[in-house]
């Protein structure tokens, strides 16, 4: 077969690739922020005295963990406009990914919450903190620290999931690779660059997370 790998093709297009990568990271960041808020809210909701919030949260978690992300993305972008909810591509994608992530993060934060030693809540109440103060100053920080490793791996997962934005023509990294492929037929260059960039980014994020975990000692 007559194919020689041409680095200059990569060089010429590297800005598009890196731009796509940056967009992907931005989408992932936005999604995990919103998803984290959803997850923390839902985790605390399940601690309410009534059983209703917990049941609703369980339905949410079950629904979104069992439905493929791609279907959610397409539904949000193509189906929601029919009931009047029209979003731009990026916003629609972030919404989909955040709600999807929220379902997983709810479980992460629930586990973090369960890892808070029971006696510590008593101690907080014993010094006169109100229930809200105990939740804010005692439970919340401990829950966050417990959840840190899982939060990290979820972020890496979400970053890889941003590749699905390509399906609704968001110009992130996978979209750029596919575009280069179909326009120039430089198959190997396009895909090896995309793969290398994704891989390198995941490794860097993982290393950064390990450093972060060491900064906050586990109790």
């Amino acid at each position: 077969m007559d194919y020689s790998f041409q680095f200059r093709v990569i060089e010429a297009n590297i800005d598009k690739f890196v731009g796509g990568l940056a967009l992907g990271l931005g989408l992932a960041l936005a999604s995990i922020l919103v998803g984290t808020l959803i997850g923390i809210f839902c985790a605390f909701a399940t601690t309410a005295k009534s059983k209703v919030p917990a049941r609703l949260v369980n339905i949410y978690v079950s629904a979104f963990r069992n439905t493929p992300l791609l279907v959610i993305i397409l539904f949000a972008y193509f189906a929601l406009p029919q009931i009047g909810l029209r979003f731009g591509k990026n916003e629609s994608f972030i919404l989909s990914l955040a709600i999807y992530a929220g379902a997983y993060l709810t479980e992460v934060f629930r586990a973090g919450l369960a890892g808070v030693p029971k006696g510590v809540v008593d101690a907080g109440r014993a010094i006169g903190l109100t229930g809200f103060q105990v939740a804010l100053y005692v439970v919340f920080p401990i829950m966050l620290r417990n959840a840190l490793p899982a939060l990290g791996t979820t972020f890496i997962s979400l970053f890889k999931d941003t590749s699905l934005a390509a399906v609704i023509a968001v110009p992130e990294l996978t979209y750029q690779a596919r575009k280069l492929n179909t326009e120039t037929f430089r198959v190997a260059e396009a895909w090896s660059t995309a793969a290398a960039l994704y891989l390198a980014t995941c490794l860097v994020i993982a290393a950064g997370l390990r450093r972060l975990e060491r900064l906050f000692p586990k109790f």
Partner: protein
Amino acid sequence: MSLLAIRGLIKHFGANEILKGVDLDVDKGEVVSIIGSSGSGKTTLLRCVNLLEEFDGGEITLDGTSIGYVNRNGVRRRLGERELARQRAMTGMVFQSFNLFPHLTALGNVTLGLLKVKHMPRQEARDHALSWLKRVGLADRADHLPSQLSGGQQQRVAIARALAMDPKLVLLDEITSALDPELVGEVLSTIKALAEEGTTMLIVTHEMRFARDVSKRVVFMDGGKIAEAGPPAELFGNPKTQRLRDFLGRASGHI
């Protein structure tokens, strides 16, 4: 008038009646120890006094104020969370498993209540907390996390945390039971020093020698009621009820 007055305290856990009508008085500056087998309701009694548990009948009065409940139009109602928290701040509790806040340093553990409940200015809270850590002998460990402290040290920080809030009454729930034997001594001497300074304390303990040493009165609980009470010499030397005799007989190694 006693600082703490408990009248007819009743508490159910589901179908079980754990406290069957407890009457107890503690005067200011008095140290009272509670002994008894597990299940007799000792810990539950303590947790009712600092409102960590609700109670179903009877009344608890602290420094003249009836706490936990209010009678409105003849209906007995539990107070709201904010009022309960305020009342809880009047008592201090030290727990068997220390329950230090793992994400805060020793200093942070002691200052949390000062800052968020008493709304002390930051520097004042810090100084006050450090003085208490000094009194329990841990001023040099102020910046350590609980995971970096031994059991005995953690318990002493817990004592400082409770006392820095300047409570009217301190409740101690088997505070040496979870400690290795060689660490028990440092905690007991801290408590002894506090007793000598006139801190009002209600202590649940199995350390009979300690109870004898530090308390003005010892109370024996059995089956949810106070079966016998009196000065330590009398209670341990001349038990009047059979139940107490049996209990002490079983615990005889400790006297």
